[in-house]
């Protein structure tokens, strides 16, 4: 018996599914999330999965959020506990007054439950065993049966789920009808045997609007297609593999010559990350738009080539879908932990451009922009996603493209320009922006050829070990990086309702949690201006923001507050004024976590001095 009043909430709760990896639950769980979306209610789902194929625990969390908060919330209101291995932890994670949904086929001792939650048992195994003879069917349809039961418990419209099943199994009538049958098996059992609905309910709304539901990796891959990438070289690594797989899929649809059927792209699965970035650099050197997708360990392997790209000034785009490091770390857990590694990748003095999209829509936009930037700046551009954006579906604004947009191919000297007698020095700073002209191989019979190398050379690409020549080149590279400040996406600032001397800086996948945390902090009486950084090098507005505030919190998902380090390093600011707010257990940062960490610090700052209090 529950000694706590059950949670009652409409369109605002968290459901977590605890499953066994490989049990086929992913499809049913995702359908649950999509079904709620079809009710017009925003959702924010997250896949929490092990670095394993079968047998280990996996969770799928769906935050149902009428208010549209897309960050992780923390806590679970309804636990669908389908994994005996994690039972105790799963039960413990339920909010007081929450609900536990489980397979009640086998009786369980009362000690396995809690008094302050509502327990809902459905004999799933018994139902499947009496309906299906095939063991695999029993397993798979069990997932659809619990989906059906949940639809009754949460008062969802079954027709919307049937519609989704119809879309998923279009043209496969047998699968379609058997899935619909399983859905109703569960739903009917719940309606007949349980008190439906429970305190948590889904009510039709209109809060989704025209937003789309897409994974960041897929959006980034689509951005590469729209951005004109013709060559992708990659090596499989979690959580980035789906970028290349999605690029392959998009190219198959949109990049074949209609007359010949031939491909207007080339995709090579390299033998390793070194070869992948080598292919990208070779292709870019030769004038094609090329990219690779990888994660932290891949970045480590690529750093030698990244140094070459920087020094020899060859465009390259690297999509880094970050995961928890160092070393193998936690391959299937999220972090924003490659900031320093990418900003200064390779030996010697290097600086690289980093782009930080906050959601799939920006992943699309920044991916497309990365190719323009790479060619304009003739250097490596990192698109810094992470697992939380890359491998989870997110609601975001629709993707947009301006048909009048042309690709910025940067400073490329053509045969005509060479014929005109233009002075071509591969590393000449003609325009004072640090960016030289290049030529593509094969351009002109007698003019414009040069030798690309990672060793020092003069402005005309002639090998030189002269110290002054080397320093001249390195200074120009600094000028080029300064030019980049005004080419990359600018930070976005939002000010508090009242003037405040406190600010917060954040970036990337932290964004939705941060947006929500601001509301929680305001409710606690704290006003903060906020700045979302979208790229490195930092725009001058970052320095202005720092100057305007006494203390600035830097919220990020790594141990060492890497963005803060970068800000300190690049702006020469007193580190004491930058307060690190870090979260790095591999799960996405939550609004609750941010609000507590900043709120506690703010409370501490607000303590009235004793002298003042007694006077």
């Amino acid at each position, binding site marked *: 018996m529950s000694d706590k009043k059950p949670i009652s909430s409409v369109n605002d709760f968290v459901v977590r599914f605890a499953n066994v990896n490989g049990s086929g639950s992913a499809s049913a769980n995702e359908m649950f999330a999509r079904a709620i979306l079809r009710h017009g209610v925003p959702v924010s789902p997250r896949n929490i999965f092990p670095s394993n194929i079968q047998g280990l625990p996996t969770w799928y969390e769906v935050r149902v959020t009428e208010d549209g908060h897309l960050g992780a919330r923390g806590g679970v209101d309804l636990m669908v506990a389908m994994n005996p291995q994690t039972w105790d932890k799963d039960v413990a994670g339920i909010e007081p007054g929450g609900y536990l949904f489980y397979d009640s086929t086998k009786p369980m001792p009362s000690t396995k439950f809690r008094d302050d939650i509502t327990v809902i048992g459905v004999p799933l195994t018994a139902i499947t065993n009496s309906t299906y003879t095939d063991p695999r069917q029993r397993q798979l349809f069990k997932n659809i049966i619990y989906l059906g039961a949940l639809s009754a418990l949460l008062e969802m419209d079954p027709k919307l789920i049937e519609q989704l099943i119809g879309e998923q199994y279009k043209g496969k009538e047998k699968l379609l009808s058997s899935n619909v049958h399983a859905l109703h098996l569960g739903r009917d059992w719940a309606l007949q045997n349980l008190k439906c609905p429970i305190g948590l309910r889904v009510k039709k709304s209109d809060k989704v609007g025209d*937003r789309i539901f897409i994974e960041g990796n897929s959006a980034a891959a689509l951005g590469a297609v729209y951005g004109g990438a*013709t060559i992708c070289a990659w090596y499989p690594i979690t959580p980035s593999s789906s970028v290349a797989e999605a690029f392959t899929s998009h190219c198959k649809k949109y990049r074949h010559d209609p007359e010949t059927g031939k*491909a207007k792209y080339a995709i090579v699965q390299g033998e390793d990350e070194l070869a992948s970035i080598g292919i990208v650099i070779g292709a870019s050197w030769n*004038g094609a738009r090329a990219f690779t997708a990888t994660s932290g360990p891949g970045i480590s392997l690529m750093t030698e080539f990244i140094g070459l790209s920087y020094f020899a000034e060859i465009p390259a785009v690297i999509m880094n879908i970050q995961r928890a490091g160092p070393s193998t770390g936690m391959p299937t857990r999220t972090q924003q932990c490659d900031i320093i590694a990418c900003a200064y990748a390779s030996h010697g003095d290097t600086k690289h451009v980093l782009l930080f999209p906050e959601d799939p829509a920006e992943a699309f936009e920044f991916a497309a922009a990365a190719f323009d930037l790479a060619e304009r700046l003739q250097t490596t551009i990192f698109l810094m996603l992470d697992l939380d954006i890359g491998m989870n579906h997110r609601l975001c604004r629709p993707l947009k493209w301006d048909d009048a947009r042309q690709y910025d191919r940067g400073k490329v000297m053509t045969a005509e320009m060479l014929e005109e007698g233009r002075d071509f020095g591969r590393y000449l700073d003609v325009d004072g922006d640090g960016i030289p002209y290049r030529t*593509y*191989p094969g351009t002109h019979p007698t003019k414009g*050829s040069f030798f690309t190398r990672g060793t020092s050379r003069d402005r005309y690409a002639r*090998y030189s070990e002269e110290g002054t020549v080397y320093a001249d080149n390195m200074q120009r590279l600094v000028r080029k990086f300064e030019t980049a400040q005004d080419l990359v996406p600018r930070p976005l600032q939002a000010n508090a309702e009242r003037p405040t001397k406190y600010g917060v800086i954040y970036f990337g996948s932290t964004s939705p949690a941060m947006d929500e945390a601001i509301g929680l902090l305001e409710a606690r009486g704290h006003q903060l201006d906020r700045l979302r950084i979208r790229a490195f090098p930092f725009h001058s507005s970052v320095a202005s923001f720092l100057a305007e505030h006494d203390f600035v919190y830097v919220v990020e998902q790594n141990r060492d507050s890497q963005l803060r380090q970068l800000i300190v390093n690049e702006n020469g600011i007193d580190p004491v004024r930058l307060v690190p707010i870090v979260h790095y257990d591999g799960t996405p940062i939550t609004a609750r976590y941010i609000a507590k960490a900043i709120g506690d610090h703010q409370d501490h700052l607000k303590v009235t001095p004793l002298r003042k209090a007694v006077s």
Partner: protein
Amino acid sequence: MTYIAKPKFHHPGLKKNELGYTHRDYEGKISTLCAGCGHDSITASIIEACYELSIEPHRVAKISGIGCSSKTPDYFLGNSHGFNSVHGRMPSVLTGANLANRDLIYLGVSGDGDSASIGFGQFAHSIRRGVNMTYIVENNGVYGLTKGQFSATADRGSKSKKGVTNTDNAIDLVAIALQLGATFVARSFSGDKSQLVPLIAAAIGHKGASFIDVISPCIAFNNHAGSTKSFDYVREHNDAVNRLDVLVGRDPIAVDYAPGTVQVVEQHDGSKIALRKIDADYDPHDRLGAQTFLAKHAAKGQIVTGLLYVDPDAEDLHAHLNTVETPLNALEADTLCPGSAVLDKINASLR
């Protein structure tokens, strides 16, 4: 590597090829390699082959890794773009360049340290992918730039200049290339220009992965008694299976056929390889036979040279990927970007 360019003037009576170019048009900067280096002879052979084929120099992309051999692209085809990448990674850079523009000719120049050690993987994978290139290893069995360490192609039992005996087994890049599916495999000797020049010319004409291992003695660190990569040793143990000439449609080369069998192999680009067999039993179309032949001769300490294997019907990576004929680097937004109307449909499918 040098910034000293050769003087521009030349004798007005220099012989010209079909395009009106002289040998000088195929030269590069002055070599800074040691006087007598075998690599300079290979450079001369590349120049000669390109001259004979009447290649437009700027239509060649020459790509290398790091090391003595990898410096050499600076010394030929001065009007070509060159790329001295990083140690052992020439094959991936070349693969990318080739994917970007299938219309150029790709010369990959590497060394035994570059290709048989740090770049062994990249060598293998570029070969198995069938990248349309001429991959030349200037093989001296030693690390010259770091002054005399054994490389992975140094034969077991051979001695270094300091008298140290190599106890590791050697990697035979030719045997590996055959096993990996290279469709043109040859070995030659830098001191045998009459064999090497037509081999290079034929390899350039070959559409697919062409591999040539050229034994190229290091005059400074590996040209002593006890070395199996010295000039003397190679001359004494060179066992040529064939001699060849390349006949291009435009300008057939006069061939002084030696007595014995002649076999003509026609390649994709219309060029013909006239193979003058020295070993009457040797069949350059038999991959397995070539592997066995190599192994048998290696066991006897002999260095088999010549065109060891050729598949005249080879396909390259572009054929495998079914890419368009237009070079990928020439495609622009109007042909690459699906446009906003398609994006609207994509958006609609994601709701």
